[in-house]
């Protein structure tokens, strides 16, 4: 084997730093994987790495300089470079990349046919996921529904909305995204659900809220009233002396929970005076001593 100093092209007095620099300069040019088609580069690279192996180790270098060892046998055994596999790998090897010339395949029949055949038979790549947004009605979110989504590129997608879905929740429809390449699986469709507002109900988690107007007589004397719920009206007893802001709970009339139970519907009462002035009521209140003594603002201290 040649003199390692000569191989790297450095002086015998070269510093370790200079040796490393010289090696890197040569290795960048000669590394077989950076020269996939050049058979000679491999031999040269092996020489250069063997030389560097010897000279980068201060101990070995000193022994070589004193003539105790020679440069032979210093070669590192190294069986394979990546290029050996890349060029022998079956077609469609996962790293190979054709993006370097797909532009001119567009205008060349032979090349595009070659690429098409290759991608049909061998390349596997999972298709990408596609995101959609689907606004749904409040009640569909509570009770569940099947909604048909019209896709921008044509076609439709049936989305099963589970009962109790939350605003902003994303449903994943397996295999409904972009098709894969070759034998690759298609991607998924990710459907983000937004729940539209309802004119009567609002929702917090699994509970439903409703503001329920009641008459003055129902508030003062109590009574049975009909209350809308997402699954139809139910009858509820308003206790005697109920006030605006009183909250009554209808157990189990809310949204389906994950554990299989249901949330509640919470009914906030609002006491309403008659829509038209009522002389009888006015006459009664004018003579009502208890009413004059009542100050609902006595706790309001700024």
């Amino acid at each position: 084997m040649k003199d390692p100093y000569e191989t790297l092209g450095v002086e015998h007095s070269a510093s370790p730093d200079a040796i490393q620099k010289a090696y890197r300069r040569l290795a960048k040019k000669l590394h077989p994987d950076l020269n996939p088609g050049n058979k000679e580069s491999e031999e040269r690279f092996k020489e250069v790495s063997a030389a560097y192996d010897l000279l980068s180790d201060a101990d070995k270098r000193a022994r070589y300089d004193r003539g105790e060892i020679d440069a032979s046998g210093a070669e590192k055994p190294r069986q394979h470079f990546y290029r050996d596999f890349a060029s022998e790998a079956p077609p469609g090897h996962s790293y190979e990349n054709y993006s370097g010339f797909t532009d001119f395949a567009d205008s060349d029949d032979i090349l595009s046919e070659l690429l098409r055949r290759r991608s049909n038979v061998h390349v596997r790549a999972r298709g990408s996921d596609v995101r959609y947004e689907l606004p749904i009605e409040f009640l569909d979110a509570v009770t569940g529904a099947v909604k048909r989504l019209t896709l921008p590129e044509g076609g439709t997608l049936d989305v099963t909305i589970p009962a109790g879905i939350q605003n902003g929740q994303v449903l994943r429809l397996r295999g409904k995204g972009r098709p894969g390449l070759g034998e690759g699986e298609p991607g998924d469709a990710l459907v983000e659900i937004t729940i539209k507002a309802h004119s009567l109900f609002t929702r917090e988690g699994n509970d439903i809220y409703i503001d329920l107007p009641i008459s003055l007589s129902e508030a003062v004397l109590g009574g049975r009233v009909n209350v809308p719920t997402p699954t139809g009206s139910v009858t509820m007893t308003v206790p005697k002396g109920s006030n605006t802001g009183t909250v009554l709970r209808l157990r189990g009339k809310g949204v389906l929970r994950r554990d299989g139970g249901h949330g509640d519907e919470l009914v906030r009462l609002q006491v309403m005076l008659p829509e038209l002035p009522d002389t009888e009521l006015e006459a009664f209140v004018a003579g009502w001593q208890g009413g004059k003594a009542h100050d609902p603002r006595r706790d309001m201290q700024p």
Partner: protein
Amino acid sequence: MTINKREFMVRAQLEDKTLEAWIREEWLIPADSTGEMMFSDADVARVQLIRDLKNDLGVNDEGVGVILNLVDQVHGLRRVMTELLRSMHNRA
């Protein structure tokens, strides 16, 4: 020939964290056979290439990604070139 993750890590002398990071960077793309990562001899050699770039040639992490991408493109080009030549000869 394919080998599983454990065998690959032994043969490539690669630690779990490094392997994860390299897969995240898409320097390595294991084949997925029913949820289990599978590797090949090509992957072992690719690890050696990444090591050469990082350790011997002083390439930084960004550079490694760029180089691997270009190397992959070169191999794609070489393969199509080979087939193109073959089909030309067959036609002639």
